[in-house]
């Protein structure tokens, strides 16, 4: 009798695993493949490792939600995440592996601008759409898509327009800030952000001077010399682009050099990123930055004030016990955009998926994203603000939000070249 019971138990278990557990995904896949595969990559090592983790968390959550609702046209979705190590060669190797060996149907992610510029040119040969979700150089879309016509490139996250132009449009209205200095990330992203900032600000404020620039490469541990070098020029404000753990370190080291007693404002471009806000929380609570720290991001969890965004943040917190960083939101939305495009195209063919994006306007947690056909950039709005504490959240948030219309701070075709050098 006992034995019989255990046989029945095993039988029931097999039935459960085989037929019940996959749930709605039982419907036959209409795309003629066993599963739809999504390849993702991001930085998963070094001081920037949280971005890769957030890319993975955002993509995983999207895939889980899609599968729970029956997949894409009845096909189950599978995800594989890889570490790009912020190295272009690794990123290209990963992309090739994901497509040719693993069999990805579309790709999402990549943190470094350098990596994105290396991946772009190999995509036509691989014939897979790539939805970029963090890499920010304007050249990815303006040059590789609009100028060179690489159709497989699509960008879901806002590029350096956010870091450079938006900042200039906000700070042009602060007449007592006349001397700007730059502590820049020593690669393409840092150069283009600073160049766009200078170019835009100069148009509105001929009286402004750019007094110093210091450049810090990836894996810089000590910014003391960069800080003292630009402070020697007595700037009113600092424009700063190192990101992730490096931003946290830079701000701590600036704070102990007494920088916040000497300047009026510090712009930490991607300081609105959740990992940075978590890292500087004690300093913000202790008012170490004296309210002078301003930042933005490619999405912030406290904006827009919509039901969709609130529900996303809530689900994300429940799933991962953290607030979503922008790379989580952009990657989540990228996976969803890929789904919408495949459903419209009713095909996994790269050209048909990209075609299906034309005219797409899609609601995402960050708000309405509108596809721009000329350069395959999704246009949406993210505000900037002062880094403040809010009793509703355990970590600092961006407050006093400045929302600029996208028509003002995005660049629009036809594009004029912007230097991507120091």
């Amino acid at each position, binding site marked *: 009798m006992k034995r019989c019971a255990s046989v029945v138990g095993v039988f029931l278990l097999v039935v459960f695993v085989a037929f019940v557990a996959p749930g709605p995904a039982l419907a036959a896949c209409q795309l003629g493949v066993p599963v739809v595969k999504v390849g993702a990559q991001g930085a998963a*090592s070094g001081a920037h490792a949280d971005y890769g983790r957030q890319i993975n968390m955002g993509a995983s959550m999207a895939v889980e939600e899609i599968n729970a609702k029956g997949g894409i046209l009845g096909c189950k979705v599978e995800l594989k995440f890889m570490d790009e190590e912020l190295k272009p060669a690794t990123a290209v190797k990963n992309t090739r592996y994901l497509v040719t060996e693993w069999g990805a149907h579309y790709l999402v992610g990549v943190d470094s601008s350098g990596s994105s510029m290396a991946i772009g040119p190999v995509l036509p040969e691989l014939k897979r759409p790539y939805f970029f979700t963090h890499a920010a150089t304007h050249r990815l879309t303006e040059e590789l898509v609009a100028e060179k016509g690489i159709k497989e490139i699509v960008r879901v996250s806002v590029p350096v327009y956010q870091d450079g132009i938006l900042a200039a449009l906000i700070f042009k209205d602060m007449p007592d800030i006349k001397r700007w200095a730059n502590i820049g990330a020593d690669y393409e992203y840092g150069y283009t952000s600073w160049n766009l900032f200078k170019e835009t600000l100069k148009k509105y404020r001929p009286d402004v001077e750019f007094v110093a620039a210091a*450049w810090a490469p990836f894996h810089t541990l000590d910014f003391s*010399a960069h800080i*003292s070098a630009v402070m020697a020029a007595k700037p009113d404000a600092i424009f700063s682009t190192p990101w992730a753990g490096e931003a946290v370190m830079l701000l701590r*080291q600036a704070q102990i050099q*007494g920088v916040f*007693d000497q300047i009026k404002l510090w712009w930490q471009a991607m300081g609105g990123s959740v990992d940075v806000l978590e890292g500087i929380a004690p300093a913000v609570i202790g008012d170490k930055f004296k309210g002078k720290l301003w930042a933005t991001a490619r999405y912030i969890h406290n904006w827009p004030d919509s039901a969709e965004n609130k529900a996303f943040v809530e689900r994300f917190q429940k799933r991962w016990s953290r607030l979503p960083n922008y790379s989580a939101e952009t990657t989540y939305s990228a996976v969803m955009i890929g789904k919408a495009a495949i459903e419209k195209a009713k095909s996994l063919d790269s050209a048909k998926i990209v075609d299906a994006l034309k005219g797409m306007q899609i609601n995402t947690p960050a708000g309405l994203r509108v596809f721009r056909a000329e350069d395959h950039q999704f246009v949406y709005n993210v505000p900037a603000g002062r880094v403040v504490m809010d009793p509703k959240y355990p970590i600092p948030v961006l407050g006093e939000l400045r929302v600029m219309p996208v028509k003002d701070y995005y660049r629009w075709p036809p594009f004029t070249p912007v230097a991507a050098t120091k």
Partner: protein
Amino acid sequence: METLAFQGVVGLSMAMYLWLISAGLTIIFGVLGVINFAHGSLFMLGAYLAFTFYGLLGWNFWLAILLSLAGTAVVGWAMERFFLRYLYGVDEAYQLLLTFGFILILDDAVKMIWGGVFRIPDIPAFLEGHWSVFGRPFPVYNAFIIAAGIVVGIVLWLGFERTWWGRTVRATASDREMANAIGVNVPRVFSGVFMLGAMLAALGGALGTPVRVVSPGLGAAMIIQAFVITVIGGLGNLKGAFVGSLIVGVLSAYGTLLFPVFELALIYLIMAVVLLVRPQGLFAR
């Protein structure tokens, strides 16, 4: 002028971290004849341990540093006793391969053990704030690092020059067979020296805890700089490591101020010039 002087002092504080890590690297090479590629990973391990005790558990700053040194010394001892010891007789390439393997192992180990998001813990209250140096605010913490580096330098010099242990080590370094013949326990000296080197690396990592973020992959980044410094100073030469650290630390600070566009190439340029003019390094015999 004051700008230059201030930048020099900032460079000095950066040089001291470099000194702590390259001191251990050069001592281990001088005595054991091993280039320990995993030395940077010991630096990283020291930083992680200090972060755990001071940052996560909130223990006393000094205690956290001591525990970090002790923990890293144990790991260093195990590396020497159970692995490196079997490779002294064979080609150096094997030692490089082995220590390179340790970089990968330690990187993945810290990812598994700590892999989360890091905060930088608060600076201990007595080291907060800044002093006026050449009319500009200079962090007390950086001054503390400079003092710590100099104290370590003096202790090492006294230890090697004035103590029985130091004489034994120097004897072993210059001729290990002869030292063995006159009754020195060479394997024990090797273990002791490797642990000392590991502790110096850990100290460099641990002292950065309140101002730096530790992350996996740090070891590989650090070892390159430390290696450049020991090559400039002369492999195996302690004085050379000190002067090499000062050169690299201070000149890269000046590079940031004066030639921001090609600052990165500067230390390699220095190394190239030293290798051309004095291939054995500045201080090698």
